[in-house]
């Protein structure tokens, strides 16, 4: 791996949020109803934070080149990801930089995730170990 990891881009549509709600069991209304999301002061439906984290997990797994390599994974949700009810939805971009490779084979990665040019996570990081 080089120091800068290949950015990964993921499209997110309303259909993705519905599918994630069903698969995860998180049926919070702010992830499927504009009406109820705006009632609590949101611009409209937003992605589940854990869906965004799952996409970042895909990026980390891709960088690691192994499905079981993530040993630590941490994010702070700093800004919501609004998902408009359009065919295109929105897009989350995930990039990473290797911060450290420890003597015992642990690779520490600092992660940036953006949507529409704005950072949606802060202090996001992962540690990877080839098992």
């Amino acid at each position, binding site marked *: 791996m080089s120091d800068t990891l290949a950015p990964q881009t993921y499209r997110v549509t309303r259909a993705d949020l519905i599918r994630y709600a069903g698969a*995860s069991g998180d049926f919070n209304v702010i992830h499927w109803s504009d009406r109820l999301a705006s009632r609590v002061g949101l611009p409209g439906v937003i992605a589940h934070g854990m869906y965004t984290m799952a996409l970042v997990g895909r990026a980390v797994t891709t960088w690691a080149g192994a499905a*079981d390599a993530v*040993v630590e*994974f941490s994010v702070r949700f700093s800004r919501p990801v609004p998902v408009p009810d359009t065919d295109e939805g929105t897009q989350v971009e995930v990039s990473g930089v290797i911060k450290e490779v420890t003597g015992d084979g642990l690779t520490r990665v600092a992660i940036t995730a953006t949507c529409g040019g704005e950072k949606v996570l802060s202090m996001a990081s992962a540690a990877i170990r080839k098992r």
Partner: protein
Amino acid sequence: MPLDPSFVGRTWPPTEPYLVGREKIREFARAIGADNPEYHDPEAARAIGYPDVVAPPTFPTVVTMAAGTRIIDDPELGLDYTRVVHGDQSFVYTRPVVAGDALVCVSTVEEISQRGGHDFITTRTDVTTESGEPVVTAWSKLVQRGEDGR
């Protein structure tokens, strides 16, 4: 109303075991668009040393969310869920979750704080197999936004 600080340090009894199904892992992996064969194909998972399909890194949230609900739904805590947003999430893995695991969660409130009119609660959930083998520990920080709507 601030959160009840006496919850800090409290640990809840272990949850009933959650039996991780192969189809649930596949469903979750499909929902996040993760097509690694080890999430879908038992043979591919066996080839890297696991007895059945392995779960993507954030899958444990499916299991830990129910354990967390027991805490945040406790009226004594004083959390108004309509004002709650997810602040932080962390996982430290001993190994990935594997289909066939019967997982037990033990949750502890690690921290309750107040800053800028908002309330914060951090819970740790230790996820083990029924026989006590550690699998993953999850930390979740929830933010209850101030009532003035900031």
